[in-house]
């Protein structure tokens, strides 16, 4: 876990410095009258300090423990990571694309496409069932969000049809 901890600790130090520098740019005030930059400086410094402690703590751990954890590290940072995380990564890609296209193509078209891809992602052999499920889910979500909750879902290119 040491390598993973060092990577994350490094990120926390950077994030902490970001808030620290950001805080200095605002009015800091003083102890009598603390201003907008006061608390960001405190929080940023603390995050950087904790990140540094985490880095130091990784050097003091026993070597035996390190050997046991190497396989795990390979699973998260190494080549083996792709084997376990490609479905989650593809899911995220589909979701980001969905969000990007939601207001352009509209709720119905984008959701149909997104759901169909997601249903097939873990079940690639089937075509008909994902299609039926996608259409049913759209009808159900349209009834819940548009009809019952009166949400204004984006119509996109289908604006003139409704």
């Amino acid at each position, binding site marked *: 876990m040491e390598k993973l901890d060092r990577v994350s600790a490094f990120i926390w130090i950077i994030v902490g410095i970001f808030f620290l520098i950001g805080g200095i740019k605002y009015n800091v005030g003083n102890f009598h009258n603390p*201003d907008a930059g006061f608390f960001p400086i405190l929080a940023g410094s603390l995050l950087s300090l904790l990140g540094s402690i985490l880095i130091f703590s990784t050097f003091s751990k026993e070597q035996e423990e390190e050997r046991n954890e190497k396989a795990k590290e390979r699973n998260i940072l190494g080549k083996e990571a792709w084997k376990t995380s490609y479905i989650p990564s593809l899911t995220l890609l589909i979701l980001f694309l969905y969000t990007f296209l939601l207001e352009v193509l509209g709720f119905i078209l984008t959701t149909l496409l997104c759901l169909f891809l997601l249903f097939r992602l873990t079940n690639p052999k089937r075509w008909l069932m994902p299609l039926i499920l996608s259409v049913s889910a759209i009808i159900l979500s349209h009834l819940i969000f548009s009809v019952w909750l009166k949400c204004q879902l984006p119509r996109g290119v289908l604006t003139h049809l409704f």
Partner: protein
Amino acid sequence: MGSLVENLLLGYQVAFSAINLLYCFIGVFVGTLIGVLPGIGPAGAIALLLPITYGMAPASAIIMLAGIWYGAQYGGSTTSILINIPGETSTVMTCLDGYQMSRQGRAGPALGIAAIGSFIAGTFGVVILMLVAEPLTKVTLKFGPPEYFSLMVLALTLVTYLARGSMLKAIIMAVLGVCLSLIGIDIISGCSRFTFGIVSLQDGISVIPMCMGLFGVAEILTNLEVSVDVTVFKEKIKGLFPSLKDWKDSIVSIFRGTLIGFFLGILPGGGVAIASFTSYAVEKRFSKHPEKFGTGVIEGVAGPESANNAASTGSFIPLFTLGIPSNVCMALFLGALMIHGLQPGPLLISQYPDVFWGVVVSMYIGNVTLLILNLPLIPMWVRVLRLPYWVLFPLILLFCIMGSYSMNYNTFDVYVMLIFGIIGYLCRKFEYEPAPMILGFILAPMIEKALRQSLLISQGSLSIFFTRSISISCLIIALLILSVSVFTKKRRQAIVKMVDSD
């Protein structure tokens, strides 16, 4: 006493209105469903359904959300007992003996005692909440900014101490939450901080998409890594009502679990999971046959199930009396109260008695509904469990996206949710717990306000925190907890490993 009766009558009036009965039913039904389904927890579900409550009256909204919260504790036990997969972290311990009971053909009594124990604990919790909350607010009214600051520092320390795994990592998560809360307009000076000219960031990051991402999307992404082959218990479940011997064996465990759960539920960070872990450990310690634990003893189901339900009610006490959330779901309740224009804090009960007493009485109704819902409807929940995950996860994701989008009708909140989904997914991989981040995020504006007000009052002197008795007591306890955690680090890690291996 007179005022208690009057308040209860007001509560009955609110909770027994047709619309609130309906919302209470929807809440406990959805809660049980969420508890049964392993893919999403109560935090994700509450975040998901919070936007739906915008058009409701405040009492109705809180009644429904509370139903989801305690309903999930009931539902979680079903998956633990029947398929050895905990629906919630709070029902992990139920797997140990509950599943073994199922394998021995005693799934019925296990499910029965889980539901009845939960009912007893839940009802006891509501009675204590009702009796304690109002007198406590009279004490908390005396709190000034220094007391609030120290109390919240203590709360955050407890949250990080009680988090699973490394305490240092839990503190980092809490401070990261504090940093993220700084984005948006400064509450005192009105200055815009860390917004980089993005208009949607002026109001800060909303806690709802943040929770949906951390607890909904991240959970799904993690589940997608492994193909879970669920084998649902196929035998007919019979004899749901426990026998006389089962009652004799479990009644003390139910009451012990109730007490442990309620008091651990009040503690910030204590929450439902720790309550059930502690209850299981205590039952094993006090048992005449501890070696039989894990082989299907009914006390191993009765204790933890009662504890997690009592804890779910106990966690409302700091929220209603101090306005301080003790866990992620309570943080969402805090958000819900504010969205509905209610100011959480010591004045909440006196200013909005209909909301508080309505919610309290609805909990009685909810507990009875859950008992009715759980026992006869178990075959239906079993059928729900047979729903394959490839059908379930796209639907949960769709509802998460629609929930985020419908908050402000823009895609910004959806992006926020997805980014926090990635953060939550990485947190699980890098062994960081996301719950302290949410509590840090929620408590930070209050901590900042209390710190700055305290320094203004004391004209820059930090002695204000050390000269007031409540404030110094809180800080000393926080310091003691930090010291204890350093000295008992190895022991703590051993306990975590033991729980994980179980």
